[in-house]
């Protein structure tokens, strides 16, 4: 008996039907988790919503010419924290004002536009922090053409803190679902180990070490867990792309589909798959030891 038994897929060989059901269930769950993970990664929790709503306004002095103001906007847009910087001339500012407060046309009685031009600066979602906003605001204040910078510094820290809490809550819910997967997986592994106890005893009686059996079962669970998580994440990503195409307004909350292929997003998805593989292996080992402890 020189050849050693191949035990990597022993559960599959001995208990095919229940394992198929479990595998389908896990794949669907990973699709859900993958969808949630990619949504969270792209949206940054609530960062993209906040970044979409928040803008720094640099009010320019009345005498600044348009060409100079546009040059200033381009310089502001080149800052690493800035997503976009758009110059609005006094006329555009007046129209925006009237749209917001209709019926105030008499304020421009003598034909003079009482509003100055301004630059609207939007921050990148991943750079929306108090420090980065301060940096941008300080840079703008140092410019002689800028009369005033409106960055909401009085209420911004509270808003950012609330945003951070909301993001943590989102990730916490995701973590809870992942923990739920682990607990259910452990119970499934335990039930399977109990169901196959006589088969494992059979193999142990024929010289297969229990430790080797447990290790190879865990390795098999890790490999299948990785593949299922990767496939589930890809399927979840596909569902996310379809959702974003069908409901374009979601892009403002979640982000553009192209961001799914950013190296950071792909690396996170791979890390998630590796984490899922480790969880599957741990569930297998814990289920195995619980089944053995229950038998003793």
């Amino acid at each position, binding site marked *: *008996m020189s*050849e*050693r*038994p*191949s*035990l990597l897929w*022993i559960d599959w*060989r*001995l208990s095919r039907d229940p394992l198929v059901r479990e595998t389908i269930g896990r794949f669907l769950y990973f699709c859900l988790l993958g969808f949630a993970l990619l949504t969270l990664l792209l949206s940054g929790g609530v960062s993209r919503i906040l970044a979409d709503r928040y803008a720094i306004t640099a009010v320019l002095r009345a005498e600044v010419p348009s060409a100079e103001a546009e040059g200033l906007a381009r310089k502001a847009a080149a800052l690493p924290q800035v997503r976009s910087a758009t110059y609005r001339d006094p006329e555009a500012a007046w129209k925006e004002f009237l749209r917001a407060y209709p019926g105030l046309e008499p304020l421009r009685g003598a034909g003079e536009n009482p509003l100055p031009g301004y630059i609207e600066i939007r921050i990148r979602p991943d750079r929306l922090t108090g420090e980065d906003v301060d940096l941008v605001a300080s840079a703008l204040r140092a410019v002689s053409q800028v009369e005033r910078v409106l960055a909401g510094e009085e209420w911004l820290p509270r808003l950012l803190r609330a945003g951070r809490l909301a993001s943590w809550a989102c990730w916490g819910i995701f973590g809870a679902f992942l923990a739920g997967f682990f607990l259910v997986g452990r119970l499934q592994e335990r039930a399977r180990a109990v169901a196959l106890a*006589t*088969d494992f005893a*059979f*193999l142990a*009686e*024929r*010289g*297969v*070490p229990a430790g080797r059996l447990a290790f190879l079962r865990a390795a098999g669970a890790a490999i299948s867990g990785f593949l299922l998580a990767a496939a589930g994440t890809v399927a979840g990503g596909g569902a996310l792309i379809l959702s974003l195409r069908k409901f374009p307004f979601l892009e403002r909350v979640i982000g553009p589909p192209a961001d799914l292929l950013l190296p950071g997003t792909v690396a996170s998805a791979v890390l998630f798959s590796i984490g899922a593989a480790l969880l599957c292996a741990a569930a297998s080992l814990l289920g195995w030891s619980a089944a053995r402890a229950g038998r003793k």
Partner: protein
Amino acid sequence: MIEGFRLGVFSRGATLWDGLDFAFGDAAAWFVTGPPSSGKTLLLSILRGERRPDAGDVVVSGESLYRGDAALARAWRASCGYIPEQTVADARLTVGDLFRRSALAGGGVRESERKERTDRLLQMVGLQGASGWRIAELSISERGRACLAAELLRGPKVLFCDGLVAGAGVPFWEMLWGLFRALAREGNTVILVERRIPERWALAAGNPEPVGPFRVYRLPGTAAEAKGEPG
């Protein structure tokens, strides 16, 4: 050669037996009889390396099973086949599952080869076409024969059978007699434990060696060796 030296077992607060010596030579079929509750199943567990005796040692080809290398004991168990008396625990399986599991324990058996050998072995033990049958639906005789066929799939060097002959029933004794002799001729060792030996087998085997509560018979391997062919 499987040897038991001064074997002793203490069970249920008393000495079941002590100081027993056994010697089972290679390439032979051995028949051990003993009365109920004499520790026949226990003896098989000890000889298979599953249960350490409370006294004495088992030596296989000169190596101690219980005082030597653990890997050696595992290799020994891997080379053994075992048909237990009770197969209730496997009731949820089908006959085909027994073969699948046995192939796993053996390793290296290809799927096509396994199926082909399964059909051949089932036919040999009188269970042709039984691959899909559930163990729960089989009689004691059929269970024993199915387990025997599944163990033979791996081609074990040593085969331990617990109550197989009695369980199989009289109509299958001739088949088993021929099978055990064939296995012995091919260099395998067969050790059977039963409450009693079929009369014709006892006649063919000649005088047994008494060891404690047991009687040890060596079944003849060839027709010439046999004093009285059964069947």
